[in-house]
Structure formats: structure tokens, C-alpha cells
């Protein structure tokens, strides 16, 4: 923090070149189908690009290491949030298979959609009492 690092123009151009190259890679791999690895590859390239931007353009590589620690910590918290949430969504059917995915029959928000009963048959709008006036849904 005490000394200000001056990055040579060459480095900036090299970083910019790398970023353009990786953009080309992103486009190129989109022509192939890797199945469930599509998202992993796309996110991997994006993460690499973001890291290069943070390290070189944002000077984290040369700054006081506290700043890098803060940056890595914020990624760690994001990681905690996503992984632990996946512990829920990834295992919902573990005990009761019927709660595997959220009930999709009818959300009160979409009053414009035609009402159906549990078998998918149309129901008369006025006789159905689905409007969410209630105080508590749980």
C-alpha cells in the first residue's frame, strides 16, 4: 500500500489480449455439447477471466495482501451460500420423494392463467377459493 505499483503498458495489453482470447474460447466451446459440463466449462472460463481482471487491472497482485484476503473471503462467503443452499435443493427428495420439486400446480400470482384442479382439468374461476388473502401461508 505504501508504494504505488506502476504497471507497464505491455502487461495491460497482454492481459487485454488474454481476455479477448478467452472470450473467443467461450464462444468456441459453445459449439460443442459437453452435457452437464457445459456450465462448468463456461463458468470456469468466466472465473479465470474475472481473476485476471482482479489481479492485474485491479492491482490485487501487487497490493497489500490484506486486500487480496478480503477479496478471497468474499468469494468464500459466496461459496458457503451456494454450497449450503445446494444441500437443500440437491437432497429434497431424500426422504419424501413428493417434495423433490416445488408444487407447481398454481401460484396465486398468476391469476390470468386458467385454473386447474389436481388432475389438470379446468376449474370455474368463481367457485375456486384460491386467492391468497390469508395471513399466513405456513
Amino acid at each position, binding site marked *: 500500500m505504501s508504494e504505488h505499483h506502476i504497471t507497464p503498458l505491455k502487461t495491460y495489453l497482454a492481459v487485454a489480449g488474454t481476455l479477448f482470447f478467452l472470450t473467443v474460447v467461450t464462444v468456441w466451446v459453445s459449439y460443442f455439447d459437453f452435457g452437464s459440463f457445459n456450465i462448468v466449462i463456461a463458468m470456469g472460463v468466466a472465473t479465470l477471466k474475472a481473476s485476471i481482471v482482479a489481479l492485474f487491472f485491479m492491482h490485487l497482485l501487487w497490493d497489500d495482501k*490484506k486486500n487480496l484476503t478480503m477479496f478471497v*473471503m*468474499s468469494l468464500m*462467503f459466496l461459496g*458457503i*451460500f451456494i454450497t*449450503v*443452499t445446494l*444441500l*437443500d*435443493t*440437491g*437432497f*429434497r*427428495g*431424500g*426422504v419424501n420423494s413428493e*417434495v423433490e*420439486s*416445488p*408444487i*407447481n400446480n*398454481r*401460484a*396465486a*400470482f*398468476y391469476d390470468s*392463467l386458467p385454473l386447474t384442479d389436481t388432475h389438470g382439468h379446468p376449474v370455474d374461476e368463481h367457485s375456486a377459493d384460491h386467492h*391468497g388473502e390469508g*395471513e*399466513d*401461508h*405456513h
Partner: protein
Amino acid sequence: MAENQKQNYLTHPKGIMSWLLTLDHKRIGLMYLFGGIAFFFLGGVLALGMRLELAAPGNDFVSNDTYNNMYTLHGAIMIFLFIIPAIPGALGNILLPLMLGAKDVAFPRLNLASFYIYTVGALFVMYTIISGGVDTGWTFYTPYSTTSTSNVIPMTMGIFVIGFSSILTGLNFIATIHKMRIPGLTWYKLPLFVWALYGTSLVQITATPVIAITMVLLILERLLGIGIFDPALGGDPVLYQHFFWFYSHPAVYIMILPAFGIISEIIPVHSRKKVWGYKFIAFSTLSIAFIGFLVWGHHMFTSGQSVFSQIVFSFITYFVGIPTGVKIFSWMLTMYKGQVSFTPPMLYALSFLFLFTIGGLTGIFLGAVALDIHLHDTYFVVAHFHYVMQGGTIIAFLGGLHHWWPKSMGTMYNQTVANICCLGVFLGFNGTFFPQFLLGLRGMPRRYATYDQQYAELHNYSSFWSGILGLSIFISIMNLLWSLRKNNKLDPGTNPWGGMTLEWTHTTSPPHPHNFEEEPVLEHGPYDYDKVIVEPTFKK
């Protein structure tokens, strides 16, 4: 010198603009204090209104819709406009630079900006109230919050804005603690209140952005129909709860950690004894801040989340009890064989120990999945979090206010009245909320304006004592304000409790506009009562 001593931050410089555009952390802290107390009053009136309605089983005073608005606003105002900003914003701002021997916080302009951002957020909330209120509960759970016709958007917008004030204050405090300490004030010589503010600030900057995102996603779904939480559009309503509690559980620690810090200051000073287990208290603060990020799912045991994550969350929840227990035992051992004096701040600290322990232990009940499924959304939960939030944070806030009032305002309130009020708060609080544990165990659900006859007696009892509680808090605040009358100034050298931290030993009461006339030199640790004698001085 004499002329210089008369100068203090309250009277110099003069004029309304010198307050509105002040960069002085003490003045900004005072503005937060009075803003916070105004919202505390508003939230309190709503609470008393609800208790009045609940005194008898039927719809006696308000309709169900009005009641829904009342509990939503009570919760949102108390949490977002009072408890979260009050201790860091008010007491933290006033005390942090003084405790570090600094002239101000690291970024004074940013500090003023965060106060005004808080004000803008508060205006959104006021607009919500004037334009008809909001009835979703302070958690804004989907799907109701995306379908309710009440003013969800201005309210969530207000919370979004207030979040930035919280983030900026946290950022400012972290920079201040790292960079503004006087030479020799190493980490282990910091007052424990500073450690508490540090832990709080870390949580503020890491968790608060998530509530901002959550509120934006909710607004986007309401306005544009983008499917984030609605299953009909491929969303997931439980995801909202993950988002919300990923912030709001750590936010519980934003609310309680500064309170722990206040108690860690009050107890050694009023027991005239070195704090027991300094490092344990300091590191338990940081470990609570971290564990707080891993337990949010215990708010969601009945939401339909997977059984696997229920077990994981329940298990991790118990870990919170370890650092919290470390603190409680350290405070008790600090008092052991000390010269405990029953001053108003100490009485509040003792009340805190009782009430917070009850709140913490009932939290262990609720952390157990099987029991929580029975107790979820009952008055047991209401009683539990009031024991933690009011019995913990607000009691500690009142204690801190009484402790540092002579320092920040240069006047002394009537201590007998303050002691009686503290007793009134303690009795009124238990009278109000203990019956609610019993109501919850018997199945009384929260958030209803009416109830079955079998609950009438306990509700009636709770309502009666809530009046005593409200009155006691009101009189104690009035008692403080009454001390500001003319010709009631203390001698600037007053150190009424014999505190050893820099704000007591090295500056006047109220402090100099630039905090210290010259840079203080550290002579002893914050709680060295075993090495140095600092006598309480109390002169008018």
C-alpha cells in the same frame, strides 16, 4: 487553557448547519442516537397497540388487516431502523475513535454519508406507513410478498437503501480500527467494545449485500414477473428464505455482538476488576461472527427444505452456544470477588445476563429440529427472540447509554430514578414475555389478532406487564433527557465510574471537538484494575 476546556463538541461550532453537515463522529453518533430513539418510540407504540388488542380474545380495537400492518411495521422498524443502526451507529460512532485515541473515524465524510443514506431509507419506510402500510411480516416471505396488494416495494426499497448505510459504517469502522490506533495500542490492548464492533463490521460488510440482492430480486419478481421465487415461472419459494436468512441470521449477530461489547465494558468497570479471559471474549466474538454464517437454515425447518440440510443446520446451530457460553462465564468470573457497585449501567448489565441467558437457552430448544417443528410460528419463538433482542440488545443499549451518558453529554441523570426504571424494565419485560413461552408451548400461533378463550389469561397478563415495560423505558429515556436541563453540567474532568479506557482517562466530558487536546499516550491496559488505581470522580 480554561477557555479551551470549556470548548466541547456539543457547543462548538454552533448553528444548525454545523450539525447537519458535521464530519465529527460524535455529532453523527448523536444524530443516529436521536433518530434511533425516535424509531424505538414508534416501534414501541406499535407494540403496545398490539398488546392492547391482544388483552382480550376478540377483535376489540383493530381489524385483522390493521393488525397485520402493525406487526409488520413493528418488526421492520425495530430491526432495520433501530436495533441494527443504534449501537454501531450511535454508541459505536461516538466511542470508537475515542477508545482508539484517534481524532475521528478513518473516513469522516463517508460516515456522514452513511447517516444520510440511513435517513433516506427511513423516509421510504415512513412513506410506506403513510401510504397504507405493508402486511407481509418483517421477513417478506414469498409467495405472499409477491402477491400482497400492500406497499411491499417502498418498504423493501427502504431496507435496500438502509443496507448500504450499514455496509459503509462497517467498512469505515474496519479501516478505523486497523489504521487509527495510537502507537502502543496493540490488538490485545483494545477495549472489548472495539473487538465487538470489529466483529460486527465484518458481518455487516459480508452479509448485508445479500439482503440488498434479495430485496432487488423480490422487487423484480413483483414488477416484471421474472421467475426467481415463483414455481410457476421455474422459481423456488424456499430460495427466498435461503437468501433472506443468509443475511438475517448473521444480522442477529450484527444486533447482539455490539451488545456483548457494551456488557464487556460495563462489567469490569463497575466491578473494579480486570476482565476475566480477555482473549477468550475477543475471539469468541469473531467465532460467533463466523459460525453465524453457517446456521441460517434453522429458521426454515418447516419450509420444506431437505431433511439432510435440516440435520446439518441443526447440528451447526449448537456450536453457537460455545462462544456465547464462554462470554457469559467470563463475565460472571469478572464479577467474582470484584467490588460490584449497583449503579444503573451495572443493573442493566446484570439484567442482561439473566435475560440473554434465558433467550440463548431457549434458542437451543428451537435449534433442535424435532422440537422446532412443534414450536415453529408460535409465541414460543416470539418470546425467544424478544428475550434475545430486547432482553439482550436493547437492555445492553440502555445500559451503555447510562454508562456513557455522562461522557457524551457531560451531565448526570438521577441515578435513583434510573435504578427504579431498570427494575421496572426487568420486571415488565419478564412479565410480558415469560407468559409467551407458555402460550407458545400450548400452541398459540403468532401473528393473529384474535385467539381462543383458553389463552386469554396469559395474554391478559402479558399485556398488563407490557404497559409497565413501556412506561419504565419511557421514564428512563425522559430521565436521561431531563439531565440536559440548564445548570446541570458536570465538571469536565468527571470520571463517574472510574473507567480506564482512553475515553475516560484522556479527554473531557463531553469531549473536546477534536477528541483530545494532544495525542494521548497509552499508560495502561483497558482493564488493569489490578495494577493501577483509577478512582471514580464525580463533581458538579
